[in-house]
């Protein structure tokens, strides 16, 4: 066999990698897409909704054929304490009709489908292969090494996920810091379709996304989530690693306690656990972002830290797709101009800056810092639920004025009015 060289090698067949590979193949490039899972998706897990409108350009009308579970029409964001919750409940039928806003997906199916699309477009999909290292020619990345095999290409796109060993090896980033990463622990709970639709008040194909803050994580910075799939619930917790370490709690125990919380348990009641998984989520925002490229290589998706936690919603897959697309476009230009150095990297960062990816990352740039406010996980849930208790409590004694209730609730939460005001201001700015 002669030395085979590809235009582009993409490492990792998640949404970012498969999108990049698909786009490049659609434009006629020779692409190898290398995935360490036995099948694309076998190593992937998500705790968020796919806001996948950005895929429409590549695969028009894809929602009709993709393995999508439910269209999310209902977003519920909630403060939780040991015995109460207070939530923001938004529902719209608009999100249940084309063009849909977001959908729940099961990654083993969705990622495999997307990789299959890439393969149909001409990508050479190589799954079950772990890339061990990068091949270099001089200062430039020129391919990948897996086991005894080296494969060469004009450039490499690293889409190898939150742990991105390739970005690290290439010197684009240092060790991941615990404060920049969160651990997601997810249970997949099987329930009959009708039970899910009854329990969550859904018409067929409609879905709900829950996000909880507070007691879910036993005060550890992070939150809980529940997404309705067609015949299962994705339910779990996300905990920022530095805070988890500080808390000395067992991650597995926090995750299990969440499922048994008196207000959560009824949502999963009668269900059967069919999968238990865990995955890291980059949460450092711009602060942790590595250099996005070097001669012969671009970094996309989770590997580049493209995720957003806006407290109201968690995003990652859409940013992965957006960055994959930008990298593909930069690669196309590089292939045309034979400039795989600074020119390519600049094109990539320019495209990202102009796209929703970096715009949104910048819009929410203050969010990671805001979310570090640990009052968010302890005092605020206590404050709002105590306030609500006082408002709704009718026990035969005269009702106090709402303002009095608020001050009493604030007092019992241990925060000052000044802290509250300052946090509100920070929160609004972060949004």
């Amino acid at each position, binding site marked *: 066999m002669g030395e085979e060289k590809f235009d582009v090698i993409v490492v990792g067949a998640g949404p970012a990698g498969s999108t990049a590979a698909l786009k490049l193949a659609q434009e006629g490039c020779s692409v190898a897409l290398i995935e360490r899972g036995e099948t694309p998706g076998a190593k992937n897990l998500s705790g968020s909704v796919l806001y996948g409108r950005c895929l429409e350009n590549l695969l028009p009308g894809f929602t009709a054929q993709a393995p999508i579970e439910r269209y999310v029409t209902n977003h519920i964001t909630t403060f939780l304490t040991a015995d109460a919750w207070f939530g923001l409940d938004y529902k719209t039928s608009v999100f249940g009709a084309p063009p849909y806003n977001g959908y729940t997906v099961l990654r083993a199916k969705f990622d495999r489908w997307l990789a299959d699309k890439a393969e149909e477009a001409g990508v050479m999909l190589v799954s079950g*292969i772990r890339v061990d290292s990068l091949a270099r020619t001089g200062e430039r990345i020129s391919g990948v090494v*897996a086991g005894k095999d080296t494969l060469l290409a004009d450039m490499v796109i690293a889409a190898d996920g939150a742990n991105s060993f390739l970005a690290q090896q290439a010197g684009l980033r240092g060790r991941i810091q615990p404060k920049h990463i969160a651990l997601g622990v997810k249970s997949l709970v099987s329930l009959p379709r009708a039970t899910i639709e009854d329990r969550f008040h859904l018409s067929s194909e409609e879905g709900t996304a829950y996000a909880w803050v507070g007691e879910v994580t036993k005060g550890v910075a992070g939150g809980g989530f529940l997404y309705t799939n067609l015949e299962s619930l994705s339910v779990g917790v996300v905990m920022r690693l530095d805070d988890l370490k500080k808390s000395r709690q067992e991650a597995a125990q926090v995750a299990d306690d969440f499922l048994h919380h008196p207000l959560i348990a009824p949502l999963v009641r009668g269900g059967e656990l069919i999968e238990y998984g865990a995955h890291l989520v980059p949460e450092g925002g711009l602060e942790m972002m590595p250099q996005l490229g070097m001669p012969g290589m671009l970094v996309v998706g989770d590997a580049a830290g493209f995720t957003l936690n806006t407290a109201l919603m968690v995003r990652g897959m859409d940013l992965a797709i957006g960055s994959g697309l930008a990298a593909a476009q930069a690669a196309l230009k590089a292939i045309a101009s034979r400039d795989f150095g600074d020119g390519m990297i600049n094109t990539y960062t320019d495209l990202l800056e102009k796209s929703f990816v970096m715009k949104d990352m910048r819009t929410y740039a203050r969010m990671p810092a805001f979310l570090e406010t640990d009052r968010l996980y302890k005092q605020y849930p206590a404050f709002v639920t105590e306030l609500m208790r006082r408002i709704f409590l009718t026990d035969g004694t005269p009702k106090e004025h709402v303002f009095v209730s608020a001050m009493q609730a604030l007092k019992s939460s241990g925060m000052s009015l000044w802290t509250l005001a300052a946090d509100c201001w920070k929160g609004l700015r972060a949004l």
Partner: protein
Amino acid sequence: MATRFISKALVAIQANHWRMTLNIIVCYKLSPDAEDLRILPDRSLSFAEAEWRIGQYDLNAVEAGVSLAEATGGTVTALSVGPKELENSKARKAILSRGPHDLYQVVDDRLRDADTHTTAQVLAVAIRKLSANGYSFHLILCGEGSADLYAQQVGAQLGQLLGLPTLNAVAKIEPSGDHLIVERALEDEIEILEVPLPAALSVTTDINLPRIPGMRDILAAGKKPVTQWSLDDLGLSGGIRPGVEILDTRAPLQVNRKRQIWEGESEDMINKLVAELRKEGIP
């Protein structure tokens, strides 16, 4: 290792013989991964989410075929019959990345849940068609048993249908002149046989350690030729009449065990256990 089981005289003969090029057909079966089997409340089984895989024991046959072909400069053709899951590109790469040069598949959903009789019949017709098309093979290899039925039958039936010398439990194969020297590992004895070609052999899991395909193997697999036939293409439009009718398939009933469990390593506990056992007449 050949010298360990081939007598000295034979080694001498072998040294004086040329080795013929071996063209080999390796049969394999794709079946749903038993690990993905879900038991429904009525004990029926769901394979809705199941990954389909090449039988683990078939991989030994593939490896045996590929290493024999490599040693003798021959070719390996992979052959499978079954339902439409065979068409999956990943499943095709999975077999071709392990070394076969090309792949023939008979795909028909009527072959879902085929009994060994049906599978062997269709394989035999496919091999006859390959021969009629001018492909001359010397050896047919099968695995020890399939991952789903583990009936250990197809190799035996196929060999008989084709009128070939047929053996199972083959633990070693050594080409020697125009025939093979084969070691057969039976339950309590070892047989060494001289087998003329063409022949049909089913190999044991001890015969080799199947290779794990590398990146280049998988890339190469994507470019190897695949030929797909239907039962109609084989002149089997009427299907094959099976030898059995399947009545029911379910998860086994669990015997109700007492499940009396003690934790710890104290003598006290052991005495409790022994007392319970004595009630049951043990020892």
